[in-house]
């Protein structure tokens, strides 16, 4: 006789699906508002030099990412940013000769390399700026879903936007195909993981044929499906009704524009100039600048508006 055991057979909801179904933080805003806000953050990362201001900006970017529930997804971006930033932070003190305050003398073979506070500070500040720019980029990619990006881009170039959307749609499928093909080959005894890297690469070369063939077949199917659904007609419309403009969207957009104006105004007024060499300017003094206060406050407001404990539907 068969043995039975009671068990709750219940499909587990994917965590990713849950997060997609309930947008959080900045992700709740209209695509145009997100673009405006992320644009203002990027502008700030490009304009600001003062290490304290850049640090505050980076903290704001990270906070917005976390509140939007994209902190974990942003880790690959941040890892890349840390590699690049770390490289700049290490290399700059080694090649900079303009600093006045020597921390220590480094002996690299026949060369004496003076490491200065100013060189280190400039390296760290540059690293922070790079990390802030990449974080803003991550914010754009992770908070604004590809279909919304397509929606915005379709007003400029629909075909380019569609290619981006298809890539986003098919890359995970391509990755799953690759994993499946590898496992199918392992199951027939093919050694894909033995030996040195060169041997492993050589063992995988025949798999590319299968992957390429499947990808091409899939591409043809996608193209047929698009054509069958009327793609290619001249009078295409654009659906932009999925999220209405709410007060929060207006506030975010207005704040982003105000921040951008303050940043540009401060730039032309010289309020954001900061000298690292030969001696560091006082980083604290610029925090009281009206341009900075205005720009940063304008950037903080939409972030506060997006906090999860706010009950506003917007």
């Amino acid at each position, binding site marked *: 006789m*068969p043995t039975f055991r009671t068990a709750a*057979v219940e499909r587990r909801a994917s965590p990713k699906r849950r997060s997609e179904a309930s947008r959080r933080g900045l992700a709740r805003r209209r695509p145009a508002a997100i673009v405006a806000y992320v644009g203002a953050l990027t502008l700030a990362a490009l304009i600001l030099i003062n290490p304290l201001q850049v640090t505050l900006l980076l903290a704001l970017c990270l906070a917005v990412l976390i509140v939007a529930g994209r902190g974990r997804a942003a880790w690959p971006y941040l890892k890349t940013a840390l590699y690049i930033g770390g490289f700049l932070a290490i290399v700059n003190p080694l090649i900079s000769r303009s600093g006045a305050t020597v921390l220590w003398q480094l002996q690299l073979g026949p060369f004496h390399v003076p490491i200065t506070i100013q060189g280190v500070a400039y390296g760290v500040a540059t690293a922070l700026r790079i990390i802030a720019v990449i974080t803003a980029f991550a914010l754009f990619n992770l908070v604004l879903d590809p279909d919304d990006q397509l*929606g915005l881009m379709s007003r400029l170039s629909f075909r380019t936007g569609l290619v981006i959307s298809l890539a986003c*749609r098919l890359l995970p499928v391509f990755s799953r195909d690759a994993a499946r093909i590898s496992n199918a080959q392992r199951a027939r*005894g093919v050694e894909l993981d*033995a030996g040195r890297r060169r041997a492993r690469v050589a063992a995988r070369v025949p798999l590319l044929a299968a992957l390429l063939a499947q990808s091409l077949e899939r591409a043809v199917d996608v193209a047929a*499906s698009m054509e*069958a659904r*009327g793609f290619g007609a001249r009078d295409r*419309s654009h659906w932009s009704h999925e999220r209405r403009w709410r007060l929060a969207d207006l506030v975010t957009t207005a704040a982003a524009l105000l921040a951008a104006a303050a940043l540009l105004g401060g730039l032309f007024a010289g309020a954001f100039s900061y000298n690292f060499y030969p001696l560091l300017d006082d980083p604290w003094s610029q925090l009281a600048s009206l341009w900075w206060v205005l720009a940063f406050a304008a950037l903080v407001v939409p972030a506060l508006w997006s906090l999860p404990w706010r009950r506003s539907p917007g």
Partner: protein
Amino acid sequence: MATLARLSDVTYWYPGRGQPALRDVSLEIGPAEVILVVGSSGSGKSTLLRCLNGLVPHFHGGTLAGRVEVDGKDTRTSHTHELAHAVGLVFQDPESQSVMTTVEREIAFGLENRGVTSAAISRLVEEALILLGLSHLRHASLATLSGGELQKVALASVVATQPQLLLLDEPTSQLDPVSSEELLAAIRRLSEDTGSTIMLAEHRTERCLHLVTRVLYMNDGVLVADADPQRFADWALDGHRGLLPPVARLFARRARGHSADADDPGLPMTVKDAHRLLVAHEDPKPRHRPATSQGSPGGIALEARKLAIGYDPDEPLLEGLSFSLARGEAVALMGENGVGKSTLVRHFIGLARPLAGKVMLLGRDVGELTVAAAARDCAVMGQNPNDLFVKDTVAEEIAFTLDALGITGEQRASLTAGIVAELDLAALLQRNPRDLSGGERTRVALAATVCADPTMVVLDEPTRGMDALHKAELAASVRRWVAAGRCVVLVTHDVEFAASVVERVIVLGDRGLLADGPAADVLDGSLFFSTQINRLLRRALPGVLREDEIEWAGGDS
């Protein structure tokens, strides 16, 4: 009756093909019809559907003779996107027909292509979501959906455009039975609610024959039969019984003493119809035909000991799995989609490592073997035969496996000759596997998988998208392997197929074994994992699963 579509003497050749995919097909399609297109793989079903929406010839090229008219438009002179106003097509593979990344956007895509205003798109998207029961997934990323949900999104995307003619090309072939039933229920609701004409190509007639008003049978590009379901069933009795549902086949063998009168209800298509017939005409009664046993299993081939599997140690997919599989037995591994069946069989050869416990293959711990060493004794074939094909010819594919397993010399020659003869591949040896038909591809994939004469053979969803003829061939191979002392494990949702070849069934549920025992015990009385015959006769003849296990008192007609 107004004609919605008309094919007149249509013959079509794909580019570079000598043989036409359609031959002299003439057909008229009216409004509010539900048409089932049946036929073996490569019989021309998909080509027929693609003719109706203009993909043939506009997308595929080739040569089209004759005339196809849809909604008054000649498809030769009207482009596919113009025909999309009247015709919608849902493809086989749900992964390959979506373009956008979220559900709402995907549904809106076809409407945007037609130039529908934003306000109207909002309304139609909303209605399509409600109709297909997808409202809760409106913002979901397509990457997170199951195959069934993805196929429903594809259907919603087409339904939203309100086509007069809805074409469905084997829409359930990639789906598990639950998802298939959901999709077919949605299609039935659609035909009842909207009155659109629906044309559905499908292999598993037991799922949909009762839903349709008309059946077309294609063979080698020729439209052989075109009739209502009852007339089609009568026609199929003469040499095409495999196209009929099991209950229809069973009653076709019943002496039809009552059938001479005008009230003859014909052959039943569903369990409900068959019940009615049994109640209305009690004699002759069905009775159990003594079955021949497949023989007793041999020694243990594989043993799972307190196995826990999954990706997260804190939340294993399945745990506490203990069972053994013997030589000379065929076992079906069943359970709902995503429960961990495919993941479990990957542990049989070390493609995945257990979270706890161990797998013993022929007395050796799989954890201490390389995958290649385990694969020598246990061949595992995945769901997609195409994943195996990395060489240019069938002969090279077989040689590639034998090379990988280090089999050389006389043994290699003898194994190659054996598998070529067993799977009838001699004529295909120099062909590229990717150029072969679906059934041939499956045979080549089987050859590449089992050519080294393994003790165990594991086939993951081997009948997905397979027609009746190829299923019968596969069943024959499985029986031969079992008779030769191999252990065969079938991971399958196809209950009818499983019942025809296995004597033991293991059902997996959330976190462990739900049932493990003889097929007649496990499948008998099951709500879902049961055959049509069992659902019909489980009270009168408990444990009966297949039509060939039944005979009618007084003899078959």
